[in-house]
């Protein structure tokens, strides 16, 4: 019965986090591009960059809203579904989460209002500043959540006391062994997604021969971003995999399908493709390059030091292989596809043929699905590869109830009778997923919530696509529309209210103008008639 609750909670967590993660990488990547577009507009004053910034902001806002809504679930779920995990990590994990709230969420959501609703409220500089802050906020929040997640993977800076992990050295928690590697990896993934998103929509317009000025403005910038990020991905990915090798060799074994420890002198092969047979502990129909894994880790085709097969772990201490193996290989394979696609794109752009290659434009339209899958797959590999632990075994001081302190190692290596090494995890410094779920939550409650989320997300997802599609079909505003909106904004300086108001607003306009006059002696906080640049200065002072 308890096992069932844990499985249900795992399914629910997987569902909610994977749904949530459709949005943050997009907003991180697209946010940076929006800063580039709007910054270029401020510098060059070319209207097309403003049109671009206004268009992408709309798509950004829709995705951001769903991201926030699904993100609230994530924060509460640690407590609702994973109470014993929360008890164990609260002292460490909580500070990161609180920092995320204070530094990142307020920044994002506060300035998002100005970003989305402020085009006709604040001046261009203030608006650019808001875009910058929203982008920065979304990057900040990735920092803190990766800190927390990396701590689970490679705990550091803590000791175990009172049956839980408590912080000893905050900066060692923040910069634990895998934070930097994983953070940069996440950012690159987000940049690729953001850039491919822009490319996909622009390619669609190019196929329809619509909004060509807009397309020709956005595509080169997005393509360069996508190209550079795609090239960085394997370079950084190598560094990242090396980090996994150092800290979580069992996870690397799962990624590579290494059931048996490679023999010294023969080298470890790099598995390219295979079918995992978890019953018989082997990879079938495998295509592998001999010695390449050894070379990637040790720059030596035959050296196998520290490369461990899953046979060095007891069955209960091993991660599952099929899911990490397939997802990891999917991610790496897609990474290669991104390089191919963006290189071709750069070539066609250089030859000036990009917008005539209809087949390639179709490739770009569809290619956006790739980064979505790669981002999700990478995370699945990372999280499932950490199993069966929720907090990975780690070296830490352990204080017993009677006050004696012992320095404990995360893993103990012994040699079995047949001479093979055997690694045993430290159960005192780690926490198994099996033991981490809420004890007071019953099966029927877990089923109830899982059904709620399945229904909700199955409704939300199509609605999001539907609205996104509608905005894409409408396309960017024309130069005249933007000019009209700006003219209306400037007119407000003189006439008071609602010059930009839509249908039915004329009546309201008349009313509001009289209202404004009446309100004037009261101190004028009700009159947005103030000069837009004044607004700008006021707000800056506040910041």
């Amino acid at each position, binding site marked *: 019965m308890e096992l069932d609750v844990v499985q249900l909670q795992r399914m629910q967590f997987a569902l909610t986090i994977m749904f949530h993660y459709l949005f943050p990488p997009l907003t991180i990547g697209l946010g940076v591009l929006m800063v580039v577009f709007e910054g270029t507009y401020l510098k060059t004053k070319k209207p097309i960059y403003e049109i671009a910034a206004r268009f992408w902001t709309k798509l950004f806002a829709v995705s951001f809203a769903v991201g*926030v809504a699904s993100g609230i*679930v994530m924060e509460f779920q640690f407590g609702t579904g994973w109470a014993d995990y929360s*008890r164990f990590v609260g002292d460490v994990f909580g500070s990161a989460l609180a920092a995320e709230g204070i530094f990142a969420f307020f920044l994002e959501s506060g300035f998002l*209002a100005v970003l989305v609703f402020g085009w006709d409220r604040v001046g261009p500089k203030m608006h650019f500043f808001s875009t910058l802050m929203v982008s920065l906020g979304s990057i900040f929040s990735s920092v803190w959540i990766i800190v927390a997640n990396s701590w689970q993977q490679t705990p550091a800076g803590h000791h175990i006391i009172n049956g839980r992990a408590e912080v000893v050295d905050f900066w060692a928690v923040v910069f634990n062994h895998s934070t930097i590697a994983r953070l940069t990896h996440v950012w690159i993934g987000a940049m690729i997604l953001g850039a491919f998103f822009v490319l996909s929509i622009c390619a669609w317009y190019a196929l329809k021969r619509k909004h060509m000025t807009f397309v020709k403005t956005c595509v080169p910038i997005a393509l360069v971003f996508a190209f550079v990020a795609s090239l960085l991905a394997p370079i950084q990915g190598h560094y990242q995999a090396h980090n996994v090798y150092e800290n979580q060799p069992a996870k690397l074994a799962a990624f590579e399908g290494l059931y048996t420890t490679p023999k010294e002198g023969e080298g470890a092969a790099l598995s390219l493709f295979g079918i995992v047979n978890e019953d018989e502990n082997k990879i079938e129909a495998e295509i592998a390059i001999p010695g390449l894994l050894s070379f990637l880790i040790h720059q030596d085709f035959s050296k196998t030091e520290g490369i461990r097969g899953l046979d060095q772990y007891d069955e209960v201490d091993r991660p599952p292989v099929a899911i990490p193996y397939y997802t990891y290989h999917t991610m790496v394979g897609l990474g290669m596809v991104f390089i191919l696609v963006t290189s071709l794109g750069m070539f066609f752009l250089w030859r000036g043929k990009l917008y005539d290659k209809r087949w390639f434009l179709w490739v770009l339209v569809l290619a956006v699905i790739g980064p979505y899958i790669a981002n999700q797959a990478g995370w699945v590999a990372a999280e499932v590869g950490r199993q069966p632990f929720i907090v990975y075994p780690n070296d830490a001081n352990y204080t017993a109830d009677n006050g004696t302190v012992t320095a404990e190692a995360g893993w103990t290596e012994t040699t079995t009778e047949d001479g093979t090494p055997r690694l045993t995890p430290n159960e005192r410094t780690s926490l198994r997923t099996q033991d981490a779920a809420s004890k007071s939550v019953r099966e*029927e409650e877990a089923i109830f919530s899982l059904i709620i989320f399945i229904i909700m997300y199955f409704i939300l997802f199509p609605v999001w696509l539907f609205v996104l599609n509608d905005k894409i079909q409408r396309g960017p505003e024309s130069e005249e529309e933007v000019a009209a909106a700006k003219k209306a904004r400037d007119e407000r300086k003189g006439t008071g*209210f609602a010059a930009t108001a839509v249908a039915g607003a004329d009546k309201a306009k008349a009313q509001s103008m009289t209202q404004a006059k009446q309100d004037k002696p009261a101190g004028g906080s009700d009159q947005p008639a103030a000069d837009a640049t004044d607004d700008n200065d006021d707000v800056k002072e506040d910041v």
Partner: protein
Amino acid sequence: MEFASLLIASAESAQGIAAVDWNFLQLLWFVLLGVLLIGYTILDGFDFGVGILHPFVGKTDYERRITINSIGPLWDGNEVWLITFGGALFAAFPEVYATVFSAFYVPFMLLLLALILRAVSLEFRSKFEAGSWRGLWDYLFFGSSALAAILFGAAVGNAIMGLPLEAAGEPVASGRVSLDILREMTMLDKLAYQLSWYPLLCAVFTVTIFGMHGSIYLYLKTEGELQERCKRWVWRWFFAFAAMYVVVTIATLIAHPHVTGALTEFPFLWIIPALNALAVANIPRAMYKGRPAYAFISSCATIAALVFLFGMALFPNLVINTEGVNMTIANTASSDHTLTIMAIIAAVGMPFVLAYTGAVYWTFRGKVELGKFSY
């Protein structure tokens, strides 16, 4: 019978404040959580109120757009106060976060459902003009706002009422609690307990608070006929609120007398209920005199005072255990080291938060205008 045993249990669980050995950092975080809760209740309170009023005050699509856009740019930032409250509770009192969130599993899931539906109905309503599309989101917006208000109220009621955490006599060692009793209760048993008469009474009270707060806010943000309609709602909600205030106060004092513990210990804190009464009285006065801004400030002060009193009713406990030793700020807190780190984070971060929250409210001050980028 059940009621009587509850009454006795809650009276017994009112343990002396002096018996709890708390330190300054734990008190600081108790207070800061209170501040976050006050901020959240005031800010998202009017959002919920607007949501509850939405189908009633807005007769045309134009008017409904006005009501939605009165909170349009602000609701998202307001909700962050809740997220930060959750994060801070997790960080400062992980034991409480874990126990409460898992004990109230189903109500929390419903709350999440309500918050998500509210967010998406705001976001998606405006995307198409068809009446059926907008009508659907209108009712989802109303329903989810009302459900959230009810659940928040019920949460307060439950906090006062307490949870059956473990058999009497078993000490809470470093905050660890046994959850055997909760584990034995089925989903429906728990719901029946958590949504019993007292939490429901608190829920109704909360709906009236948010309704009043939201209608004053809308009055400030609207004009003409719509504003006149809001005004009528201000009065209706105010009388409902005042009546419920009396009922809830009496019910609390009878059923859960432990709430006055802190007031007995620190008599100078009687100033808070006194100021609260003044603030409540000032709402009709200001509305009558045509100074809605003062009414709104009074309504904010009322909410702040009520949250403060709620904190006082609990202090120094965070979870009242109807069966044994309570979970207090001392036996559930994170280490002093972590509380210090968080205090530094808060000290660095909060001035920025207040500054740009102020900046955003300043940018969107004044009456609602519908523009190209409105919902």
